[in-house]
């Protein structure tokens, strides 16, 4: 009996048929990092509800969403950048610069608000493009040092434009971005959801996304395979700039005015969300959905802690610790077994 089975097996081997259907495995399905994230997410909700009875009523949840979602737009391209094994620490400054230019064009140059919005997006795209071009043209430099330089430069330009002034007085309809609801849903949540779907599909279902993963695993082999590695990088960094500009629009709208020091240290929150979402700093691995869940974890956590009057400065400590935990725990050997599972499910 055993012999026959073996013989059949060998026979198959000689013919060398390869399976082209991936078998579904419940074990694999449940051993995904995202389940852990979902667990943590509900934990945060439960804790928040216990801390404050106002949290779970619709208004509380909605307000929370409006407040933390704006910085989450940058998470989408940052996932791609970190899969590429790069980093962009200039996004906070890009938010500030595009916001300041938008406000100045409207207030001091009397541009219509629509045009100012367009300019905002353009400035963001340009900032990202400059990052991308510098990184691609000067391959000897790391993305860390390039974006460190532009981080100072972009915010510096914002300071030149507005000095230490604030600029506001936007038309009334502009507040719709930050505060508006469509059919009971915050407008920002709708935009976020649409972009979440778009970016998830872009990363996981398109040629472009496949190329990003290839580059993150092995840039040289990707180049030898005809992937236009420079083009991919420039596009991804430009996307980061555009998303920073969208953040600028929602943030400015919610706050009603802008200053050159807005969105300081946004990059910490964004990178923390991405790392928490299971995107490895070693590149090549990760899923958009993880980062999206992480956005809500961190957002509700911050909101909940705000409800019980924990000062925002303490939030810095908590966010920092979360980031360290997210990148540090997978590196500890205690979780060797877990790591092995994770590697398997990310195949």
């Amino acid at each position: 009996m055993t012999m026959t089975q073996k013989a059949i097996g060998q026979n198959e081997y000689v013919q060398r048929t390869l399976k082209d259907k991936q078998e579904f495995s419940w074990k694999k399905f449940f051993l995904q990092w995202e389940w852990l994230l979902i667990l943590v997410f509900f934990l945060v909700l439960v804790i928040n509800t216990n801390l404050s009875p106002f949290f779970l009523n619709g208004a509380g949840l909605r307000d929370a969403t409006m407040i933390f979602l704006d910085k989450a737009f940058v998470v989408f391209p940052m996932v791609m950048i970190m899969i590429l094994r790069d980093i962009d620490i200039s996004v906070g400054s890009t938010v500030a610069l595009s916001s300041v230019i938008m406000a100045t064009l409207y207030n001091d140059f009397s541009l219509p608000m629509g045009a100012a919005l367009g300019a905002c997006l353009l400035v963001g795209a340009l900032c990202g493009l400059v990052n991308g071009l510098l990184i691609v043209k000067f391959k000897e430099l790391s993305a860390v040092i390039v974006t460190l330089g532009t981080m100072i430069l972009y915010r510096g330009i914002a300071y030149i434009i507005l000095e230490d002034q604030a600029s506001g007085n936007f038309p009334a309809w502009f507040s719709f971005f930050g505060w508006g609801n469509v059919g009971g849903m915050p407008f920002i949540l709708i935009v976020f959801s649409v972009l979440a779907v778009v970016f998830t599909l872009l990363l996981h279902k398109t040629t472009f996304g496949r190329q990003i993963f290839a580059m993150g695993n092995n840039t040289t082999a990707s180049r030898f395979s005809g992937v236009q590695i420079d083009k991919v990088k420039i596009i991804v960094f430009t996307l980061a700039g555009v998303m920073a500009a969208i953040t600028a629009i929602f943030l400015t709208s919610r706050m009603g005015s802008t200053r050159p020091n807005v969105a300081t240290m946004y990059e910490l929150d964004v990178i923390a969300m991405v790392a928490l979402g299971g995107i490895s700093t070693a590149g090549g691995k990760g899923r958009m959905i993880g980062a999206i869940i992480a956005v809500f974890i961190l957002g509700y956590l911050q909101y909940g802690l705000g409800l019980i009057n924990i000062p925002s400065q303490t939030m810095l400590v908590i966010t920092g610790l979360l980031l360290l935990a997210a990148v540090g725990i997978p590196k500890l050997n205690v979780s060797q077994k877990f790591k092995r599972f994770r590697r398997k499910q990310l195949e």
Partner: protein
Amino acid sequence: MSEYVLEMKGITKRFPGVTALDQVNFKLKAGEIHALMGENGAGKSTFIKVITGVHKPDEGDIYLNGEKVEFSSPIDAQEVGIAAIYQHVTNYPDLSVTENIFMGHEKVQKLTGRIRWKEMHEEARKILRSLSSSIDPKAEMGSLSVAQQQIVEIAKAISTHARIIIMDEPTAALTSRESEELYKIAESLRDRGASIVFISHRFEDMYRLASQVTVLRDAKYIGSWGIDEISNDALIVAMVGREINQVFPDRNGELGEKLLHVEGLSKAGYFADISFTLRKGEILGLTGLVGAGRTEVCQALFGIMPYDKGTIELKGQKVRIQSPKEAIKLGIGYLPEDRQLQGLVLQWSIGRNITLSALKKFDAKGWLNEKKEHAFTKNLAEKMHVKANSIFDLVSSLSGGNQQKVAVAKLLTAQLDVIILDEPTKGVDVGAKTAIYEIINDLAAQGYGIILVSSEMLEVIGMSDRIAVMRAGRITKILDRETVTQEKILEASMADKPKKNVG
């Protein structure tokens, strides 16, 4: 005390999917220069790494002067007087020559721990002088030529009082004058009583220096002979393990029209004045010593290394190739030399690797059609006889030969006319080699024009219709299949120097 300074018995080392060393024995006498020979992938490098403590053997024992030793790290090996000089120099480019020589055993003041620079520079100068070198000990390592850096590495070995010095293809990147200097140094080290293990592809090196030769083949120990005890033919048989004609499939394809014509291709510092023609169905061998510029020429044709001068004509059309994407579009494919670094994404499945260079095929307005992709890769991987269970198996889990088959399958996804194969059988076991030869032959028969880059003379001779030999960035000779011999190739690849009877 034992007759041998170093004795290794039954060394076995396994890596996932491949046995790199299988019961290898080795004996080294004091004051001996011992050549270690074998084809690419025979296990020489792994063996060296076992001696130097980089790899721990799975089985077998190491005896030093008759005493059993175990190395848990390279430092252990260094401490008992084993030093290695690698082909790719491993040093600190930003530090001075003196520091490179004394790194790890600096001379310091007893109490204060202050480095005694003066003494170290003086000592470094002395050692370098004794090696007939005038390198300034204070110069930055990164500013030296490869040959000079190698001399510094030897100086380092001397400064640690190494008794066993291993040289891993030290002449590969050197000119013959520089090689001759190296030979002299090796001999003087021997005369001082040091034992030297010398690894080289060049028969010339071996005849010039060694008194004993040990041959490895396909990870196994084949034998060890005194240099006078074994004829050249016997040595080749020992290394290759078969008669030449047996392994290679017959070439009987018809040559078609002109496919690729390269004229005067040059790149400053790498190659100059490269001209050749490739026909449909032809296999053009491209050989020469490592560092002769073969890979660079191929990479220029594939758009990776921009060339300064010259023209490339493809099917009668002048083309200017600036990126791999363009090259593939024009019909030129390239199988890189370093499969793991340049050829494949090891962490990826077979299927994804195969389609990486041809994602366009499964792309409808940017969306990937994965179903189509899976069917396509299944088909192609089966055609290449890749041994695996499914197309979702990771490439890193495959053996070298199977990885190479995946890399070749990857080439076949595009509409190509010219296929450049850079060392396609490097690190592949014998069985898989034959399979790859058959694949190459099939491709030629289908009408592809093939450029086969290889350091293995027998492979080039057995496979090619014509053979271009490169030396120091230039093509020195193009030889025909009918008249080619190993001597002629060797002569062309080292033409600037009269040599001993080889082959």
